[in-house]
């Protein structure tokens, strides 16, 4: 329909690639030109060699952190989506849970992470629980928002046809809520990355957060940057995975509407 207004895909992909190359070139040029101390700001080339040099640590540590992120995010989805739906459908649940929910978000996650270490040790659980705690709130809120967005007149119409609550939920509320839910999932995914690193910063003996702290302690700035590069790459890939799933799950007309509404913001 709108193919005429769309640029060729190949050309569209060119813009970000060119932008990244320009930034890297400026960075490399500035470091060489002003002879900046490597402990202050390593050049992209030095970061690349640190990346290759530390790969023996970076690969397994990435795996650890990735598992923490995914388990935390997964818990956020499994608990957050039903909770968001429940808040819409049950007034008592909303009244009971809402204050607790808000309070749980007001607790600074950095402050609660040490408590998790005391409870669950320095292993995986204390990390993914921080990731979960930080990421499930936007999922709950966006789900509740989306479920509540169904037109009440549409609900009346379906009821007049003889539809039950389950039918109204599966055919109306859930599809109508999908764009909002996925908006929440994208925020939650980036927060889950933050949560895993916060958890590792507090107490850990593996993972990218641990790697960053260790390299920082050694004043090995190229290694710190290498760790950041890997972490950023993981975050970007996970974000796009959510987008891929969104494309598969959310029907096209709803996606278009969501895109239009974000375009006007």
């Amino acid at each position, binding site marked *: *329909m709108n193919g005429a207004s769309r640029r060729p895909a190949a050309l569209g992909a060119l813009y970000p690639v060119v932008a990244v190359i320009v930034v890297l070139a400026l960075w490399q040029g500035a470091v060489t030109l002003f002879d900046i101390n490597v402990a202050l700001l390593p050049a992209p080339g030095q970061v690349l060699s640190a990346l290759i040099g530390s790969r023996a640590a970076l690969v397994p540590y990435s795996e650890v952190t990735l598992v923490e992120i995914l388990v935390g995010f997964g818990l956020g989805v499994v608990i957050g989506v039903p909770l968001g739906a429940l808040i819409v459908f049950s007034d008592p649940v909303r009244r009971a849970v809402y204050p607790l929910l808000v309070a749980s978000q007001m607790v600074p996650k950095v402050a609660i992470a040490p408590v998790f270490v005391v409870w669950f040790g320095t292993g995986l659980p204390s990390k993914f629980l921080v990731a979960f705690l930080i990421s499930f709130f936007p999922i709950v809120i966006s789900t509740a928002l989306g479920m509540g967005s169904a*037109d009440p*007149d*549409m609900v*009346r*119409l*379906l*009821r*007049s*046809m*003889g*539809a039950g609550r389950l*039918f109204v939920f599966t*055919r*109306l509320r859930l*599809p109508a809520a999908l764009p909002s839910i996925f908006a929440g999932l994208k925020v939650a995914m980036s927060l889950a990355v933050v949560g895993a690193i916060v958890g590792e910063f507090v107490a850990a003996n593996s993972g990218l957060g641990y790697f960053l702290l260790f390299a920082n302690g050694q004043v090995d700035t190229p290694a710190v940057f290498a760790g950041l590069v890997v972490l950023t790459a993981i975050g970007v890939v996970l974000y796009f995975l959510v987008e891929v799933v969104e494309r598969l799950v959310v*029907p*096209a*007309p*709803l996606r*278009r*509407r969501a895109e239009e509404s974000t375009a006007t913001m």
Partner: protein
Amino acid sequence: MTAAQPLLPPDPLVEVRGVSKVFVGRRGASVEALRPIDLEIGRGEFLAVVGPSGCGKSTLLSIVAGLVPASAGEVLIDGAPIEGPYSRLGIVFQKDLLLEWRSVLDNVLIQAEVRRMDMVEARVRARRLLHLVGLEGFERNYPSELSGGMRQRVAICRALLHDPPLLLMDEPFAALDAITRDQMCLDLLSIWSERRQTVLFITHSIPEAVFLADRVAVMSPRPGAFTDVLEVGLERPRRLAVRETEGFTRHSGRIRELFEAQGILREART
């Protein structure tokens, strides 16, 4: 031949008996939306209810559909009292209420899904209905690709898919432009002439009511009650030109006079 008394149809499908509605507000303050009203709609009759905004005519329709309980009185359809949503009917609202993520055909078919109808048969019937309203070739389109008039046609097809004996329409053309409205009225009459469903048609347009209906019930402002019920004896099938005939203007003039007497319409002060 000015019909002053409600003429009772010999074989009523819908009987509204002393139905009133009082909404209780948040602070216990109650608002009377409908005064006790009586109404009978005959089998195969096209009855229009015309009244000013907020007179409770939509509330009346919701009560007939069983979506809103009456505060007093009762509604009988086919002799049986209505308790809870009544489903042997089709409803068209002012909003088309299409699901944006479903194609035109699938929007019509949701009626069949709710009712667990035979999907193969339903699909054939849906296509036939869409053809009838001039939407053949649009079955696979999404609602966002249609005009307002086309969307409302889809909503009408959806309301008719299960071939209901009763059709409730709540200002279905109010959001459309004048020319589209005229076309929709003509199309509605041609669909109706096939099956002669019993129709309760709510509107605030006097000419629309007179053009479409066998009888027009005129409502007063809130709390709503019928001030008069007019028999429209105009010949069917009706063409748009009927609106320029003397019979038509006599009926619409009578309704205007009723509105003026109620203070709903006033002449400009000179």
